[in-house]
């Protein structure tokens, strides 16, 4: 872990009350996850017991304590997506990637996650790949996305239905 980068982030929050969550968000943005050493340094910085920092880091769904894949595949499990077959999409993705939901492929290429609701309910079912929403997803299209060269597909950027 790059201590220099971490210190740079911490400096911004010097003297700010209640900034633990914002710090964790910034650190995760920088490193992709929350390395254990970083959590200890943050605890020192805020003069908090490490247990409290770990407690907060494990309470919120958006914090990750281990390295994640280059591409994050989040399959929306909101209500509208649920009735339009989101569970099947999750099963398909698990099968294609060979991992369970919440896991990362051994080559660190993909992480598979379920997400509560993306707010794209009128275009259900929705899948979020990195920061892009793909709407009205079908198992076939998902298969195409996950087995093809994702970088190339994203470059063409045609998430049309």
């Amino acid at each position: 872990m790059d201590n220099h980068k971490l210190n740079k982030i911490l400096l911004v929050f010097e003297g700010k009350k209640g900034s633990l969550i914002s710090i964790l968000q910034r650190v995760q943005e920088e490193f992709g996850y929350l390395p254990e050493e970083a959590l200890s340094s943050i605890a020192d910085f805020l003069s908090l017991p490490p247990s409290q920092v770990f407690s907060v880091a494990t309470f919120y769904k958006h914090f990750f304590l281990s390295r994640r894949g280059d591409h994050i595949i989040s399959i929306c499990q909101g209500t509208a997506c649920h009735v339009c077959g989101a569970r099947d999409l999750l099963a398909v993705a698990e099968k294609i990637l060979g991992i369970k939901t919440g896991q990362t492929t051994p080559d660190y290429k993909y992480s598979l996650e379920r997400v509560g609701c993306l707010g794209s309910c009128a275009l259900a079912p929705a899948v979020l790949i990195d920061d892009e929403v793909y709407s009205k997803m079908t198992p076939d299209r998902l298969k195409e996305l996950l087995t093809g060269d994702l970088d190339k597909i994203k470059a063409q950027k045609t998430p049309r239905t």
Partner: protein
Amino acid sequence: MGRPILKQPERDHKIDSHDALQGLREALIAAGETTRKEVRVCCGSSCISSGADSVREAFIDQIKELELEEDIGVKRVGCHGFCEGGPNVVVAPEGIFYQHVTKEDVPEIISETLLEGRVVERLLYKDPATDKRYIYKRDIPFFKKQKRIVLKNCGHVDPADIEDYIKVDGFEAFARALTGMTPEGVIEEIKQSGLRGRGGAGFPTGIKWETAHNTPADKRYIICNGNEGDPGAFMDRSVMESDPYSVIEGMMIAGYAVRASKGIIYVWSGYPLAVHHLSDAIAQATDLGLLGHDIMGTGFDFNIEIIKGAGAFVCGEETAMIASIEGKSGRPRPKPPYPAVQGLWGRPTVVNNVETFATVPRIILNGSDWYSKIGTAQDKGTKIFSLVGKVWNRGLVEVEMGTTLREIIYDIGGGIQGGRPFKAVQTGGPSGGCIPEELLDLPVGYESLAEAGSVMGSGGLLVMDEGTCIVNIARYFLDFAQNESCGQCSPCRIGTKQMFKILDDITKGKGEPGDIEILLELSDALKKGSVCGLGMTSPNPVVSSIRYFRKEYEEHIYEKRCRALACKPLIHYHIKKYRCKACMRCLRACPVGAIIGAKWQVHEIDQSKCIKCGTCMKVCPPRFSAVECITGPIEELGEKGE
């Protein structure tokens, strides 16, 4: 990106009085008063995910190429709410509404509509039930039956251009409150209007403000609750993305009324565009001196900060949200003391929902009299619903309180897809309940929905047809609740888990006699014993669905049948021997090789291998229709199929 109407130096000019604001507005309106046409491209999250960005770029590029920039403007606007047909494009001033626009359609729209005044027929909205096409947005039934007060700017105003907002009376309500009303006068106005919290619980907004105002303190806070984690609801996202200025203006008015100097917007982590637009809006308002120190020379200071949530649904509960802002785990605490008395850092804090804040400027501008005439005697004003599920027209709809569910689903939503029969509508998300057909004429309101065993909640409306299983939906919501429970109090932590387990068993055909009674008993315990609203309301989907659809639960438990054919363990695919032509299609398509047979040999499904994916049924030619999906114990298969 709006057209830069005013040059940069003038922008640096602060708005230091009500007159200055009015002057700027008049100048902006005069500068924009031309007869030129405008293309309004919706750039809400949903339309962007359908490709709106490339459509907008194509318009800009091609109009530039044709040197038509003087005559045709391209404006990014917020969400029309009709996300199903995105990307949406409106040609103003006529109001021609195009759907599913791709960048390939752009040249045609320019040459036909913008230059020749002709309509591109195929891009018009077509009513799926009647096949009738509509030219103008205002005529489309989806929009016609709505009453858009909170959403009035969505689809018209550029969400990233404060001047565009100022043109449509933006910040006028704030200026009037600040320079012409006392804080007590503002609170009285809100009280008189009858506005109730739009986050779901419906607490009178004016009383909340008054409590915070009357509690002695050295500092007070305004918090905007944008932690819209409700699955199936996206009105707050849309308002924050499409009309961020109304939200901050509402907060500014609240800040003045309760004498707070700091506002915080807590935004759901999954809404990056909302964060982006709100940050922009705050920066622009600060630039113009509408936020900051000594606003309009009145001595009133107000600043707004954005805090991104970290993915905890429970943080939508006000005390949990406050804990989260303080940097702690978001666990609710018992109330009282209410946040209006003791909130953030122990100070009086007003926590209101996005929609509530966005309503406030409209009330101050038009008066409480005007607002209190909208709606019913009990419920004033309008409510935004996110209409999703098996209806034709899905999206955001704003209707007057007291509108019936039937009007929303059939008149606005266009009815059930494929003309299938309606089964139920789930209102209020994980805290709400299922409402059956016999109650469709129920007028929407906080109390009327509660009487029917549901809640208004944040306004999710999930429409279900016969293909949606009620037990499966109840299981879904309890799965959500047990996942999102913060784990602090045992009724919620253990109760939701056990209820989920029982429901999961029922949908898997492992239900036992007595399950319904245990579910109801647990529901009662959760309702009485939980610390916060999440636990207290989490049994609602179960209790209401047992109340109206008990028969379906019993079928699952006693007969192992799912009439909606949605619970996989309870269904079987089967090939009718007398219809099968042994064409090998399903045999080849089956992903797990579960179909036995050969050419000239009638096919059969090996139930032990079948994963119930339904592929065989999809590939079987309609003229054969040999594959059927049936429910019930597998032993009955033979006699049923033949």
